[in-house]
């Protein structure tokens, strides 16, 4: 059984950085530098995280249970000592709910823009 709907909705809307970190962790457990690189790559460098910014967000995410520390190391782990992070069930649900919320926002925005004069 997943986390309660209330627990997830309490967290929405997600901050952009939080959302991006969750998206990065869906496929693999990553360490800090890998997160920075992955997010920069997926956002075409529009979101480049500095150390303090990243770790303050990670701290909040750890404290709210969106992510947790991972003991597993990927086979190709480049450094044994680095701390890896894993997405939790709550994190997955939050990312999915955020996506749904954004879809709603987008649908509304598209509908309005297409009604406005001059739109094609």
């Amino acid at each position: 059984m997943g986390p309660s709907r209330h627990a997830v909705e309490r967290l929405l809307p997600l901050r952009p950085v939080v959302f991006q970190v969750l998206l990065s962790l869906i496929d693999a457990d990553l360490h800090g530098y890998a997160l920075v690189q992955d997010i920069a790559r997926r956002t075409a460098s529009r979101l480049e995280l500095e150390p303090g910014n990243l770790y303050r967000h990670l701290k909040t995410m750890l404290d709210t249970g969106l992510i947790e520390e991972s003991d597993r190391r990927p086979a190709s782990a480049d450094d044994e000592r680095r701390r890896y992070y894993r997405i939790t069930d709550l994190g997955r649900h939050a990312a999915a709910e955020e996506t749904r919320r954004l879809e709603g926002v987008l649908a509304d925005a598209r509908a309005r823009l297409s009604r406005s004069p001059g739109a094609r």
Partner: protein
Amino acid sequence: MGAGSKRALQTYRVLLRCYPVSFRARFERDLLELFDDLHAAAPRPRVRFWLRILLDTVRQGLAERVAMRDHPRPFPRHSGDSAMTTLVNDLRLALRSFRVQPAYTATVIGTMALGIGVTSAMFTVVNAVLLRPLPYDRPEQVVMVFERDPTGATTQVAMPTFEDWQQRLTSFRHLALFGSQTANLTGSGEPDRLRAAFVTADFFRALGVSPLLGRDFSPGEDGPTARGVAVLPYGVWTRRFGSDPSILGRTLTLNNEPFEVIGVLPRAFEFPFDEIEVYLPVTASPEYASLRGLASRPGLPAATRERRAMFAFGRVADGVPVETASAELRQVSEQLSAAHPETSAGWSAEIVPFHTVAVRFVRTPLYVLMGAVSLVLLIACANVANLTLARGTARVREMAVRAALGAGRRRLAAQLLTESLALSLAGGGLGLLVGAALTEGLLAMAPPLPRGSTIGPDPTVLIFTVTVSIVTGVVFGLVPALRGSRADLRASLQEGSRSTDAGRGRLRHALVVAELALSLVLLVGAGLLTKSLVQMVRSDVGFTPDGLLTLEYRLPRNKYAHPPQQWDVHRRILARVGQVPGVERAALTSALPFSGNGSRLAVWRAEDPEPDRGAAPVAIVNAVTEDYFAAMGIPVVAGRVCGSSDTPGAPLAVLVNRHLADRMWPGQSPVGRRVRAAGVPGQGVVVGLVGNTVHAGYRAGIGPQLYACFAQSPAIFATMVARTTGDPMASARAVQQAVWSVDPEQPMWKIRSMTSLVASGADRERLLTTLMAVAALLALLLTVLGVYGVVSYSVRRRAREVSVRIALGASRRSILGLVLRETATLVALGLGLGALGALASSRLIASQLHEVKPGDAGTLVATGVLLAIAALVAAALPAVRASSADPVANLRIE
């Protein structure tokens, strides 16, 4: 991990103190790891990166602290009147008082940020270039070894002399030789050139550097029969070869010969002389090849001892003091000059620390600038002290009340000092950012500095800036604090009392006088440098740089081995370039003015016996083709230029400039005379007389010059000059194509206009002058503000006196005169002291001046008048306001 990266980590570790302890305990290691990765990936010089990191750390650190306060720790803070609590209380009081007076706070922080910022920026450069030791194993053991001519000037080293040193000197663990020259790189895309260092096998061992990948040169690999091997610097490996780990074993074609890459140097390695792109064994150098061409081993002919063309350095053996090595070197030199009197009589040798040689041209300018910005900082301090004194007067009652409530004098002083320190630290923090931005700007406009690639923030800069902030906080805060705390209860609480103010007025005037004096010192310095720069760039160089395109190339010796082949290629290149649309005339020369090229030979009249060394004029000798003088715009005064009759078989034709002709044949025509030059067989016939040109830079000025004909002494190296009809750079590509139509594998470099080349001849002077002028203008601005502040304060304080005078019939003009006379006294005192200071300190920049005396009266008077006018205008504004005040209103307030 490189030394740079370790320093960066240390700096970041200090910065992390912005975060609360609990956050650090949890994430410090991760933050450091992430920082290290980002630092390694950030492009140099990483100024932007450091700004991002600094802002991130300060912003997130504060945010985390605020978040902590909103969710306080489970355990209450220990209470009690500890020093910490007192400090926190003082800080709280300080913050409150800053909120009450935002204008004062902003002015002080802004002034300090400016003063500390320029100081921090300059220190960043001084630290990286002059103070930080070179990244070698025990760098103090590494010394350059020069030969010294009979006049005492140091020169490069001849290879046979070096070989003798190697055999005889025992106080050196390693001795190495290097020379740098471009090498043609072919076989991969467009032909290019690499700046190569040709080194002996001991080179890297002498520096104490081991390669990151592979190995360095083994003994014997610098021998005449060894196969070609190459070592790459880290930067070239990453930029040109994409950090490819399989680079080892790859073959590079340089000067048409194969070189196998055997090693890559670590990132922290630094060679401060040229930006070297590849290291090759000395045997691959053209110099070595031409020497060996003169004789077969063993032993070189005596004459090669005069070809002093390489640099030597060594590592003194462990435990041997440099003085001992020096003494042994002198001894060996004496033996050598006794053994080879024909080439080495009177010659000696000398040891100079490696680092000293690397920074010899920039040391004085950098220290002068460091001194200049320190003066700006002092002026900023004086300004802030003045503001704080004025504010102290306004707060006398606050202090008196606090004293009445039981605060001791020490407590009051501590509180005031805390306020100053808080302000100066805030200014310093902002100053770090200002400094980082200024450093980036400085690097963008500066000509390449030795060790320039290492300039950037590091823990030393951080510590320096914080220390400067604290010291300035004490400097501008201490006197006001001591005075402020000496609150006289009764007097202060009485309405309208002025009793504590007289001493303050004198002190404030003294500060303004000091500011004026320091400003004048800086203005005179900037004025002298500006005058010198103007003299320099206005001086006649003897040719017309406008419209000239220049480029350099070197034919591969193994492709065109013999002089006739070489001349043939040069001739064909010249013909093709001459056909390029937009090119009016093209010529070749072996050494272009301002290029740094040019060989010097002693010359004398052929009918005279060979003169003693030092007695004959030493001419810059330059081989040119027929159209050279026409293309350059150098007047041919008499005779003819090189022509088609001057072939290798014909008598050697030479041209002389006026300077040389006047020295050798004063009052007579040189045409038809015969000359000889040291080390050159046969004699030349003077066929023409040409105008003087500035060749070896503005400072060297005009000297003796001798021109030979290119066809009679062709070489592999040539500089092309092409006079074009329009913008010379617009023809650059077409000229390059023309060269490639003769040999598609021929690289060219230094493709530039003659105008830019001549302008770059004053680059260092221009930079020094610009920075000095900026410092002087800052000083002027701060001083004007200081004068304005003092006068307007004193006018306000004396509003009642002024009103009484006006009420008693004094004219407004006489009031204005009263205020201005007082200011004039301060200005006169300041200028007098400043003039003394300027006369004393301008001697420090004497070595940087060109045709201007350090005590130049015109400059002193002009800058003094400028400063006096600026100060009087600053004083006139509040004076006018005072004289037009309504006397009745003023009297009523009191």
